[in-house]
């Protein structure tokens, strides 16, 4: 059962002061409403992963790691590798997160990322086939939210894109008799082929105001959000409205425009980090 989340009780005075600042065009940390906080990345933080990156978006921290293993393709997609995206909000990341399997928020986040990557054909899954119909590369992309200070989805997409861009396919040999695949992860030759970069820009609505990249405090009073994934070509490659509120048609059009602009910036940034 999906359940109305408990809305954190924010003292009236604090609420008013946030609304006041936002209505003047600023975040509570004095950024303009459409500016992201500073973004830092640490690459290869988990050397046992085949690729890993820690993304810090303000105080939000997201750790993305990839394992690449040999496995079977999906029966309805015998000529493609497999991408599996999972996300988990670890209980360390917020006093309100509980230990246990991923909840609906983590599942939704992972599925939005998965769909945006898949539908945009961001990575060339068709180049991950080892023996057609039998053996392909399986990419396990795991997202761990370590510290929650708002805007987890945008941070997670930055981390996912960057982890994929850094992934190197291991060297392998196929035994011509048995068809067994011998993998040697100590040698890596080819990079994972990236078709295009993607960014997700989530536009939040606080009162009548639209903004991006809220802190957790701001996010808690947003009535709704619209996550828009955009490709480097300027196409829309995924959308998801979340939250208890609604959007007017005009607001959606504004959100699209914002996402196309900010998405371009984020993609530039990720490409720079990927070098």
């Amino acid at each position, binding site marked *: *059962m*999906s*359940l*109305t989340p*408990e*809305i954190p009780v924010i003292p009236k005075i604090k609420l008013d002061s946030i609304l006041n600042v936002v209505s003047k065009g600023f975040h509570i940390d004095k950024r303009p409403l459409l500016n992201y906080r500073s973004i830092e990345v640490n690459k290869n933080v988990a050397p046992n992963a085949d690729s890993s990156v820690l993304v810090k978006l303000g105080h939000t921290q997201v750790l993305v790691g990839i394992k690449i293993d040999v496995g079977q393709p999906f*029966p*309805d*997609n*015998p000529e493609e590798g497999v991408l599996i995206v999972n996300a988990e909000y670890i209980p360390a990341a917020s006093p309100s997160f509980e230990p246990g399997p991923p909840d*609906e*928020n983590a*599942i*939704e986040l*992972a*599925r939005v990322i998965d*769909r945006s990557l898949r*539908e*945009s054909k961001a990575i060339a899954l068709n180049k991950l086939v080892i023996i057609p119909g039998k053996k392909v590369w399986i990419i396990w992309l795991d997202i761990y939210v370590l510290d929650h200070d708002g805007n987890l989805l945008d941070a997670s997409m930055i981390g996912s894109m960057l982890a994929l861009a850094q992934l190197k396919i291991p060297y392998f040999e196929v035994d011509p008799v048995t068809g067994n695949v011998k993998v040697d992860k100590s040698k890596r030759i080819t990079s994972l082929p990236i078709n295009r970069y993607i960014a997700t820009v989530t536009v939040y609505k606080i009162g009548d105001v639209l903004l991006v990249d809220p802190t957790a405090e701001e996010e808690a009073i947003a009535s709704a959000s*619209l996550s828009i994934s955009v*490709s480097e070509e*300027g*196409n*829309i*490659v*995924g*959308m*998801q*409205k*979340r*939250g*208890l*509120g*609604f*959007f*007017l*048609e005009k607001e*959606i*059009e504004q959100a*699209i425009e914002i996402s*196309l602009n900010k998405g371009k910036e984020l993609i530039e940034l990720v490409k720079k980090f990927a070098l």
Partner: protein
Amino acid sequence: MKLSKPQLIVNGKRIDGRGPQDLRQIKIEVGVLKNADGSALVEIGGTKVLAAVYGPREVVPRHQEQVDRAIIRCRYRMLSFSTLGERKSPAPTRREIELSKVIREALEPAVLSMQFPRAAIDIFVEVINADGGTRTAGITAASVALADAGIPMLDLVTAVAVGKVDGVIVLDLNEIEDMYGEADMPIAAMPSLKRITMIQLNGVLTPDEFKKALALALEGIDKIYQLQKEALRKKYVEIEE
């Protein structure tokens, strides 16, 4: 084995004979269950979805209750034989978990939850047969079931998908169009108030295509909205008579 993609638009007609802007045939029945406080069955083309509502009622377990509002609990589920292909395991899939949330959040803006502090409103959406558009049919059915249960709402919520198949923006995708099309975009709205309460995009659209698709969806929503109101009128007028 994935079949090779069929041609989805031939001479301007879709695979089931519709034009791009046509809805499938729709049937809405209200009050189909005795025990539930409200219920509705929505058929749209080959898709058949049952929604049932209980509430406002006491919250069990107690710790879920909220002091200033009713909580809404929602479960979307596909019956084991409702899909093509093999039997679906009854364990909830990640897709079902996501859609339960998406449907709840599509309905939340319409429900006057503040009128029932410490109560629960439970919504069960059961997909009996799946031929595309089960989540949107589920939202359409659930909002009728909420009305049937007498839950006060700002407006009904109505939903339909739009998408792009063979390059054409079309309304109300069926299963084949969803599977082989370029984009699928389910949308829900409170039609009188022009408030959009759910939007998802699965696929690729240019900004212009998006605008066109959104407009088409809102047109389709208006048509289905009339059918929802008619179905409710029919039940309640019949009762009054």
